[in-house]
Every structure is written in structure tokens, then in C-alpha cells.
């Protein structure tokens, strides 16, 4: 296969892996339950007013307001790209500090960064480049925050109900 086509296929696979990593961890850490700061709840209400679902909107507000598992996945991929597993763990430490700066008492970001560090370095054994995971995570966040807030908030609210609320 042409090398650049292979890179784009890898990026799409990496996007799916990153998407699952950050959605599962954010739902486990109950991000859709309540806004961490008033601004997160306000973003959720504005998304709901445009036809979205409130729990999904609140989770999107929380993603905007503090580094969550999606930011952890991105920065861990950057860390592994530059310096391997130690770089990923350094990124996890920086996400932890970032959470405290943003008044976020949770550990979704740090957990996401640590799990992403091992996932990304594991995939390098199958011929993936950590750079492909950086682009993959940007595509994954685009699907949630950047295309249709109405549909993505409904999807997140559906997954939140599946998790059991």
C-alpha cells in the first residue's frame, strides 16, 4: 500500500481508539452528571436550547472547561511521540496540574493520559506512529465538539443512559 495512504488509514484507526479511550473514561468519571463549574452547566443549557440533550451538553461543557480524558489522550500522544513512555507520563503529570489550575477536583484527565500512554506505546508495536494518534485524537474531539452539537450531545446522553446514569 502507498505509504501516505497507509498513514491516513492508521490515523482513522487511531481516531477510533482515542474516541473509545476518552469517552469510556469520561463516562466512568461521571462527566455528564453535573457541571464542574457554572460555565460548564451554562454551555450544556445553551446546547440543550438548540435541540441537544442536557447530560451530553454538560459533558461537552466539562470537556471545554477543564482538561478531561480527551486532553489527557492528546497530550499523552504528544508526550509519547516526543519522548516515549516517560514523555506520556510527564504529560499525565501536566494534565494533573492543569486540572487543579482549572478548579477540577476529578481525575478523568490524569487517568486518560496514563491509559493513553500505554495504549499509544502498545500500538507502536504494530507499526503505528504516535504522530498518528495525535491526529487521531484531533479527529475524535472534532466528532464530539466540532460537527453537530445537537447530535453529539444526544449520542453522549444515550451512552450516559446505557452506563446507568
Amino acid at each position, binding site marked *: 500500500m502507498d505509504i501516505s495512504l497507509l498513514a491516513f488509514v492508521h490515523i482513522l484507526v487511531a481516531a477510533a481508539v482515542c474516541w473509545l479511550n476518552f469517552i469510556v473514561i469520561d463516562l466512568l468519571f461521571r462527566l455528564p452528571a453535573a457541571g464542574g463549574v457554572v460555565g460548564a452547566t451554562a454551555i450544556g443549557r445553551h446546547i440543550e436550547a438548540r435541540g441537544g440533550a442536557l447530560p451530553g451538553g454538560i459533558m461537552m461543557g466539562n470537556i*471545554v472547561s477543564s482538561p478531561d480524558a480527551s486532553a489527557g489522550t492528546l*497530550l499523552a500522544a504528544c508526550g509519547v511521540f516526543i519522548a516515549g513512555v516517560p514523555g506520556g507520563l510527564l504529560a499525565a503529570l501536566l494534565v494533573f496540574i492543569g486540572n487543579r489550575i482549572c478548579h477540577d477536583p476529578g481525575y478523568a484527565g490524569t487517568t486518560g493520559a496514563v491509559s493513553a500512554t500505554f495504549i499509544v506505546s502498545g500500538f507502536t508495536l504494530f507499526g503505528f506512529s504516535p*504522530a498518528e494518534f495525535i491526529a487521531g485524537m484531533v479527529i475524535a474531539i472534532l466528532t464530539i465538539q*466540532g460537527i453537530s452539537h445537537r447530535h453529539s450531545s444526544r449520542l453522549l446522553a444515550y451512552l450516559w443512559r446505557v452506563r446507568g446514569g
Partner: protein
Amino acid sequence: MNPQDAALAVCAVIAVYAAIRVAFEPDTLRKLPFLNVLSFAIAGSIALLLPHPLSILAAAAYFVGTTLESNAIASTYAGGLDRRE
């Protein structure tokens, strides 16, 4: 095109797309998720363009900074300066 260039191209295209969506979204609070996508794309581009150990710090500092700004804008619009829920 090596994997690094392909990844950078994807980040750049998504950054431009997100910037256009931010510009054309009339509701300030709904601009912020698009701005979040833009921040992801730029933080990723910083690491891809400058593969140096300090780039991890630069990307994280940039990302946490923009997140804190979005947090502040959203909370101010919601009517609370430092009120937590």
C-alpha cells in the same frame, strides 16, 4: 508523505475548519466547543512541528491556558465570577 506530515496535515485542516466554525457561530457559549477543537489541533501541531522535550511543556501549557480562558469566559457569561457548583 511520512506519518508525521500526514498527521500535521490533518491537524492543520481541522484547525482551519474549527476557526471558521468559531467565526460563524453567533452564540458565544456555543463558540467554545469549536474553540476547544481549535486548541486540540494547535496543541497537536506544536508537538508535531517541534519534536523537542520542552514541546510537551509548551503544548500542555498552551492547552491548559486556552482551557482556563474558555472556563473563565463561560463562567462569566453564566453570571458567576468564581462560583462553583
